[in-house]
Each structure stands twice: as structure tokens, then as C-alpha cells.
């Protein structure tokens, strides 16, 4: 546990260091950069034309199906890792191989199904 916590202290230190890097760069930049914000400089870029509507207009993303699938496949890949670690060394090697095969089968079977249903289209 001690070594574990020490190793994560490093991760924490690096996070802090990263934030400091950004903060420091901005602080230095603030000292040397000009600050003359006005008018058109502050308008949103739309090819030199006054923006039409707000930039937050809502677009139709038909690809949210991909997001669904990603979440589910992400959960799936997540379970592969602990399995991958123990596969080589476990006493029940073949059993856990079979377990994962069943699991993968369940999840993967949806892929051709969706393909057939035609929801995997981007636009």
C-alpha cells in the first residue's frame, strides 16, 4: 500500500506540475503580451461575415448511435484488461478464456445486427 501510494503521489505531482506549467505560461504571457481587445477582434469568426445565429446552434448529429455503442464497447474492453493480465498465469486458464469468449460473443453479436439494421451510418 505504501509503494502504491507513493507511485500515485507522482501522478498527483505531475498533475500539479502540468497545471503549474499552464498557469506559469499564462502569467508570463500576461506580463509581456498586449491587451487591446475591441470591436471585431472579439466577434466570432464566420469567414468575415457577422455571425448568423449563435454559435451554439444545435446540429443534428445522427451519429449518437456511435456514442451508445462506444459506451457499451468501452465497458467491454474494460473487462478485457484484468482478464488479459491473469490469462497467462491463472489456474483456470481455459475456463476464464471460455467465459470471456461468451462475453465477447454477446457484445459483438450486436455489431452485425446494427449493421444490418442500418443504424451505423454517419449521416
Amino acid at each position: 500500500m505504501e509503494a502504491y501510494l507513493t507511485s500515485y503521489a507522482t501522478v498527483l505531482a505531475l498533475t500539479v506540475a502540468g497545471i503549474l506549467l499552464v498557469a506559469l505560461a499564462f502569467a508570463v504571457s500576461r506580463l509581456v503580451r498586449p491587451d487591446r481587445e475591441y470591436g471585431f477582434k472579439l466577434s466570432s469568426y464566420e469567414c468575415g461575415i457577422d455571425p448568423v445565429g449563435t454559435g451554439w446552434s444545435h446540429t443534428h448529429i445522427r451519429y449518437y448511435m456511435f456514442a451508445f455503442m462506444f459506451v457499451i464497447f468501452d465497458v467491454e474492453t474494460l473487462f478485457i484488461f484484468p482478464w488479459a493480465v491473469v490469462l497467462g498465469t491463472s489456474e483456470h486458464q481455459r475456463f476464464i478464456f471460455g467465459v470471456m469468449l461468451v462475453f465477447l460473443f454477446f457484445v459483438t453479436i450486436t455489431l452485425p445486427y446494427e449493421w444490418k439494421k442500418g443504424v451505423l451510418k454517419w449521416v
Partner: protein
Amino acid sequence: MATSVFALEPLWLALLLQALAALLLFLIGAVVVGYLEHKVLAHMQDRLGPMEAIWHGIGQLPADGLKFLQKEDIIPTAADRWVFALAPAVAVVPGVVVIAVLPFGPGLWLTDLDAGIFFALAASGVTVLGTLMAGWSSANKFSLMGGLRGAAQLISYELPLVLAAAAIVIQAGTLSLPGIVEAQHGFTLFGVPMIYGIPHIIGLGLFFVAALAELSRPPFDMPIADSELIAGHMTEYTGMRYAFFMLSEYAGMVILSALATVLFLGGWYPWPGVGLPEGAAGMVLGFVITFAKILVLSAIMVWLRATFPRMREDQLQRLSWSVLIPLGLLNIVLVATAKVWF
């Protein structure tokens, strides 16, 4: 588990050194790869690239950095100020954090996590949040679309990336990056010492393609497609904030190349079975070898950029879901079968 050279007492000194080393690696890695991109790209296009800064433009990127520092920081009125301002930081910090687990030579890593590769993949995935934040907060249509494309790309290519890595984990039996390098060092195929990249050629391909997409590098640079979306999520950014996005891109190249080096190319060993001298010499040699491998992989990324047109978002998704992900799953099953029965 091998120990890191940074395992020092007292702890605060170790942490300080680690933080400094990480920042140095982050910045130097990004600058070197940036310079590589400038020059390799230029020569592939029959031109010279930067030539004026110091010698052969070697000082170009630091000079650019200085220039960025002096640039005005403009936040558009329509933008969501705080999210806009924080987005570059969100893009950069994960890059620094991931360096924690990257091994650059025997003992040359900051820490050796049990969940090493998994940690690296999870943390680097946070970068996309920066893209999305930038894209949304800019209140610009091009940015919004760029951000959405970036997010879409991430969700489709995180999977092949992770699946390819998982196959290596099966092979090596550990998640620790130094552990993978050591396991690879002892790996033989039909008695011949071999890097994982050769039997795992599918995995290497998957990992590399997915890494390109994850980094929004050509031919998968739709999120910042300059001819369509101006600069995607970076359209409204100026000065230092823009520089951080660029920095995170180059650092991302270093990080993913380093991961590929560890997973597929034998890490700091010149070739599995070929050892390194003990002590400092081995460390230096190991560092040079690792960095050379990283640069070669980065140069290949640049090479692809120089040659290929951009794909279309729907083509990219189709490629991912109908080719790469099934291939990744198949690869896992194949490797697992080989592991269990051979």
C-alpha cells in the same frame, strides 16, 4: 518490479525531481517532434523548411513559443469565458500526467503503476474533453463542428487503441509498462528473440492507425480540417492558448509513439535478447534507443501527413466500426488462444 531512478528519499525531493523531469520531457519531446515535423514535411515537399533560426531552423519552435507568449489573448465576446480559457489546460495536463508511466530507459521512468498501460490510455483519453470544451465554448459554428468531430473520432478510435493494447497485455501478462518491456525482452518466437510488433503486426497496425485518429493527425484530421472547418476547435484561439493546443498535439505524438515503442518495439532494448550495459551507460543508451524509436514513429506520422488526403468523417467511422474494431476483437481472441494453447 524494477525500480525507478527517481525512487529517492525524501519523498518531496523525489516528487519535485519527477515533476521537473516530466515537464522537461514533455516540452523537449514536443519541440523535437515539432521540429521533426517541420523538417521532414518540408523535405518531402521538396522544400527546406525553417532555415533561419540558429542552424537549419533548429531554434524555430522555441522562437515560435516566444512569439506566442507575446501574442494577445483574445476571448470572443460570445464565448463562454471560463470554459474557453480552461480548455487548453485540459488538453495539455493529461499529456504531462501520462509521462509518469512512460519508460524511457532501464530505470528511467517516473513511476511504475500496476495499471500502467490502462492508466496511460485512460488519462490520454481525457484530452478530448479539452477539444470538446474548446469547440463548444467558442460559440463558433466551425469550432462546434470541429469539437463534435473530435469527440466522434475519439469514441470510435479509443476502442481499437485499447483493444490493440489489450492483446499485448495478454501476451505480456502485465499492465506495467516496464514490465511489458522486460517481458518482451524475454519473448521468443519459435526460439528466435522477437519484438511483439512482428507477431502482433495486426495489433501494431491497429494501434498506429487508432493513435493517428486519436491525435487528429492526417489522414484523420477532420476535427481541424483547415479547408472545411478553418481550424476546428482552435478557430477562436490565439496566442498562448493556441500554442498549448499545438503543444498537446506534438506531445500526444510523443506519448503515443512512446506507448507503441513500449508495446510493440521492445522499449529501450535494441532487440529482445540483446541486453544493455549496466549502470549509467545502459541508461543513456536505453534513452537514446527509446527516443530514436519514438522519433521514427513520429516521422512515420509526418510521412503519412505528407502523403495522404484527409478522409471523410463517415468513412472514418465506417473504417473503425466495420474493420478496426472487429479486427481488434479477433486479434484478442487469436492472441488469447495462442496464449492458452501454445
